[in-house]
C-alpha cells in the first residue's frame, strides 16, 4: 500500500519494518518527527533523552544487548554525541545500530551549517543518503542490514528537504524478522572495553572494515549509474539528485546512495564513459575532493576565476541549500548550459512587512526579558524560544552560540574580571541538555553570575516535546518531574528562588536584590508555555480602556504581538491609543502590569465587566 509520508515519517516506518527495538533521541529540527512518528508503533521502545550523547549511549547499549537500535538528531546534535560516535565506531555492536543526522543546509532553523558526511569519514563508518521518502524508508532498512553485516554503526544522513518533503511510499503492515535476540547479555570485553590495549587492536580493524565497505560499494544496489547522453556525467546524491534530473534531464547520472566510502572503480568507469564529469552536491566538496584525490578529471569551468581551490567547489556554491534555480544559474556561469532565453519575473518591489519569529502572545518568557532590557546588564543567551529575547523591542540578549553555552559564557566574563552584573538565561530543556555541568562550574568556582532558568514546562522551540521536568515520557507514560530548585540547592548554590514567570515585579525585585552579590544566584521563572493544551484552556483576552490609555507605548515594549495601535487618537497628545487583538491575546497580564495608567483591564476586571453585562442583558 502507498502512503504519503515525509522523509522523517518514512525513516520511522522503515525502522519499524526493520524491527527496531529501541529508539532514543533528543529533539531538533529537522529530525524531531522521526521519533514522534515511531513512538506510537507497537513493539518498540522510544524515548526522549536529555541530550544527544545520552541518546546515543542509550541506543548503543541496546545494540550491545543484541537489539536493533536507532538514534536520531539534528546535525549539531552529532557534535554533542561525537565522543560516543567515535567509540562505537571502534567497537561495533551485536545488533544493527543506525544513527540519523538531519542536516539543515541554509539553516532554516539552526545556528550553523555543517555537512555531517564528514563525520562518516572522520569516524570510518558508512554513510547513506536518501533522495526522497521512499529511499528514506528503504535505506533505513538497508542501514540496519549493513550495520550487522559489517559490524559497524551506520550514519543515515538526511537534509531538511528530504525530512520535510512528503511523497508516496510503499509501506508494509508487517515487521521483518530480525537476527535472534541473545538469551543472555553478551560479555565480550575485548571487543567492548576500549582501554588502550584493546583500542590499539581495534584501530586497524576498522581501517580494514572501511576498505571492505568500499569494495561492497562497488556493487551495492545503493549506487546506481543511469546512462543517458554521454556528453555530461553527473556524480550526485541525496536531494541534489532531484535537482540534477530536473535541470539536466538528458545527462548521465551516477547516483550515490552510499556517500562514504566511495566506490572508486565505479566512479572511474563512469568518468571514462562521459565527456564531461561534474559533481553536484550541497555544502562541502566532500565527494569532489575525494574524486580529485583519485586523480579523476573533472570539468573545468569556462571562467578561470571559478577554478577549483582546495576547500572550495568549482561550480556549485559552498554555502546554503541548492534548488533548481541555483543549479541552473551556476551551470550557466560555468558554461555547462546555454544562458536562459527568458529571465523569470523579479520579486515585487512593493514594500511589504516582514514577519520575523516573535515570542507568542502570553509567552512566559516575556516578563523576564522586559525586566532585563530595563536593567541593561549583559545577558548570555542560549538556544530555545527564549533566544527571541534578542528581537526588538525586547533586545535583551547579547550572545547565543549553541545549547548549554550561555552559562559558561557569562561565567567566563565574570571570572575575567568584567565588573558588570553578568546574567545567563537558559530554558528548562536546555538546562537538562548541557546546562547542568555549566551551572556546576559556576557553583564550584563561585562566580557571581545570575542564572535564570526559564522553566516553561516543555521543550518549546522544536514543537513541544516532553522533557525530564514535565512528568510525561515520549510514549505518554507518567513519570517523575525533576525538581530543578532542589537540584540547584544540591550544587551548593545558596541564593535560589522560584518565581511566577508572569509576575513582572517578582522577577524585577529578585534580580535587583541580587545585583553585585559576591556569589552565584539562580532564579527559576516558572510558567507554562502559552501553547500547551492546559494553558490554552485558560486563554482570555484582556481589553484596554480607551478613556485611560494615553498612547505612551510602554506596553508595546513588552513586544507582544497582540498589542497594536488603534485608529483612536488621544485628545491632548495626539498619539494613537493602543488596543488588544482579542483573537491573539491570552490574558497573561504582563502588559497590564507595566501600564503606568492602569488602562489595561486585568482578568478580574474583565470578568467583572462580563458579569455586569450579563446582569444588564
Amino acid at each position, binding site marked *: 500500500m*502507498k502512503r*504519503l509520508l515525509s522523509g522523517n515519517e518514512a525513516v520511522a516506518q522503515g525502522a519499524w519494518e526493520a524491527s527496531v527495538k529501541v529508539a532514543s533521541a533528543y529533539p531538533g*529540527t*529537522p529530525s524531531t518527527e522521526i521519533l514522534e512518528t515511531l513512538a506510537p508503533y507497537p513493539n518498540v521502545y522510544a524515548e526522549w533523552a536529555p541530550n544527544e550523547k545520552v541518546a546515543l549511549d542509550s541506543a548503543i547499549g541496546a545494540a550491545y544487548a543484541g537489539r536493533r537500535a536507532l538514534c536520531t538528531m539534528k546535525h549539531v546534535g552529532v557534535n554533542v554525541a561525537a565522543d560516543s560516535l567515535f567509540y562505537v565506531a571502534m567497537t561495533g555492536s551485536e545488533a544493527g545500530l543506525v544513527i540519523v543526522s538531519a542536516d539543515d543546509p541554509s539553516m*532554516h*532553523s539552526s545556528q550553523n551549517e555543517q555537512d555531517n558526511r564528514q563525520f562518516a569519514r572522520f569516524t570510518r563508518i558508512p554513510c547513506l543518503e536518501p533522495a*526522497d521518502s521512499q529511499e528514506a524508508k528503504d535505506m533505513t532498512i538497508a542501514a540496519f542490514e549493513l550495520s550487522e553485516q559489517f559490524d559497524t554503526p551506520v550514519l543515515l544522513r538526511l537534509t*531538511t*528537504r528530504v525530512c*520535510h*518533503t*512528503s*511523497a*508516496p511510499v510503499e509501506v508494509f503492515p508487517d515487521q521483518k524478522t530480525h537476527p535472534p535476540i541473545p538469551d543472555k547479555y553478551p560479555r565480550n570485553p575485548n571487543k567492548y572495553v576500549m582501554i588502550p590495549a584493546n583500542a590499539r587492536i581495534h584501530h586497524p580493524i576498522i581501517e580494514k572494515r572501511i576498505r571492505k565497505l568500499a569494495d561492497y560499494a562497488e556493487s551495492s544496489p545503493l549506487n546506481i549509474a543511469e546512462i543517458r547522453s554521454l556528453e555530461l556525467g553527473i556524480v550526485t546524491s541525496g*536531494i541534489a539528485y*532531484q*535537482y540534477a*534530473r*530536473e535541470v539536466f534531464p538528458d545527462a548521465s547520472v551516477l547516483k550515490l546512495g552510499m556517500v562514504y566510502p566511495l566506490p572508486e572503480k565505479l566512479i572511474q568507469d563512469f568518468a571514462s564513459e562521459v565527456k564531461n564529469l561534474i559533481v553536484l552536491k550541497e555544502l562541502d566538496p566532500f565527494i569532489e575532493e575525494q574524486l580529485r584525490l583519485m586523480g579523476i578529471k573533472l570539468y573545468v569551468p569556462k571562467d578561470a576565476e571559478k577554478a577549483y581551490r582546495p576547500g572550495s567547489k568549482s561550480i556549485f556554491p559552498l554555502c546554503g541549500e541548492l*534548488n*533548481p*534555480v541555483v543549479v*541552473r544559474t551556476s551551470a550557466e556561469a560555468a558554461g555547462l548550459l546555454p544562458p536562459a532565453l527568458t529571465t*523569470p*519575473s*523579479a*520579486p*515585487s518591489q*512593493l*514594500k*511589504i*512587512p*516582514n*514577519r*520575523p*519569529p*516573535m*515570542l*507568542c*502572545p502570553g*509567552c512566559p518568557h516575556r516578563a523576564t526579558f522586559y525586566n532585563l532590557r530595563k536593567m541593561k546588564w549583559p545577558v548570555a543567551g542560549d538556544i530555545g*524560544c527564549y533566544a*527571541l529575547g534578542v528581537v*526588538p*523591542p525586547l533586545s535583551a540578549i547579547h550572545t547565543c552560540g549553541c545549547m548549554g553555552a550561555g552559562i559558561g559564557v557569562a561565567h567566563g566574563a565574570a571570572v575575567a574580571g568584567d565588573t558588570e552584573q553578568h546574567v545567563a538565561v537558559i530554558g528548562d530543556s536546555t538546562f537538562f541538555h548541557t546546562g547542568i555541568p555549566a551551572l556546576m562550574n559556576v557553583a564550584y568556582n563561585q562566580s557571581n553570575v545570575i542564572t535564570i532558568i526559564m522553566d516553561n514546562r516543555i521543550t*518549546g*522551540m*522544536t*514543537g*513541544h516535546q516532553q522533557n525530564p521536568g514535565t512528568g510525561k515520557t515520549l510514549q505518554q507514560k507518567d513519570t517523575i518531574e525533576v525538581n530543578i530548585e532542589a537540584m540547584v540547592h544540591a550544587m551548593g548554590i545558596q541564593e535560589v528562588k522560584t518565581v511566577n514567570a508572569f509576575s513582572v515585579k517578582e522577577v524585577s525585585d529578585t534580580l535587583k536584590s541580587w545585583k553585585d552579590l559576591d556569589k552565584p544566584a539562580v532564579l527559576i521563572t516558572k510558567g507554562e508555555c502559552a*501553547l500547551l493544551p492546559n494553558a490554552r484552556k485558560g486563554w482570555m483576552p484582556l481589553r484596554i480602556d480607551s478613556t485611560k490609555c494615553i498612547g505612551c507605548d510602554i506596553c*508595546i515594549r513588552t*513586544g507582544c*504581538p497582540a*498589542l*497594536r*495601535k488603534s485608529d483612536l487618537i488621544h485628545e491632548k497628545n495626539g498619539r494613537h491609543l493602543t488596543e488588544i487583538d482579542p483573537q*491573539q491575546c491570552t490574558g497573561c497580564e504582563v502588559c497590564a502590569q507595566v501600564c503606568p495608567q492602569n488602562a489595561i483591564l486585568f482578568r478580574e476586571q474583565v470578568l467583572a465587566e462580563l458579569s455586569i453585562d450579563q446582569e444588564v442583558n
Partner: protein
Amino acid sequence: MSTTTALSQNPKAVNFLLAGVGGQGAILASNVLAELGIALGFDVKQAEIHGMSQRGGSVTSQVRWSDHVYSPTIPPGEADFLIAFEKSEAVRFIHHLKPSGILLVNNHAIVPVTVTSGAEAYPLHEEIQQELNGYTNNIVWIEGVVEARKAGNVKSSNVVMLGALSKFFKYPSNTWLSVLEQRVPARYIDINIKAFEAGRNLIQN
C-alpha cells in the same frame, strides 16, 4: 474571472504554491492537494519548512503533481497556482507564478508586529491590487473569512480557498471532498463541506 482561461481537462503536471501566515491552515490545504494528486494517479511531492513553534510567521508549502516529480521545490516562475491566504503574502510570492498562472488571493490582512511597533508599514489595498495586476491577469480575490464565518468557523477560510481552486479542474466535488474528509477531524466535517461548497460557488464556469 472565468475558468475557461484555466487548465486543460487532463493536466500533465501542476505546481501549487501555498502561502500564508502561521495558523491559517496552509499546511492542511496542501496535505489535501497532495493526497488528491495521489488519488488522481499522479506522482506527488509536498514540501514545507517547519520552523519554530511560535505563531505569526510566514508559512509556505508547495505541492507538485506530475508523472514523475523530481525537485520538491518549484522553481520561481513555474507555479501554475499561487494560493495566498493573506494578501501581503501574495505580493511576497507573486514572482513564483508562471506568466499564465492563476492567483487565488484571500482578501484578508494580518498585520505583523513590525507594523504595530511602527517599524514598517502595511501597504494599502489599492497598492497590493496594482502590484499583483502587474504580474498576472488571472487573479481571483476571495472573501475567505466572510465565507468561512458563514460556513460556521472563521478558521475554515483555507477550505473556502480549496473550494474555489477546485473549479479550475474538471474533477467532481466528491473527489475533493472524499480526500478532505480524511484530513479534517470528524466533528468539523460539516463546516468544512459548507466552506468548500461556498468557495466553489464563488467561481463561475
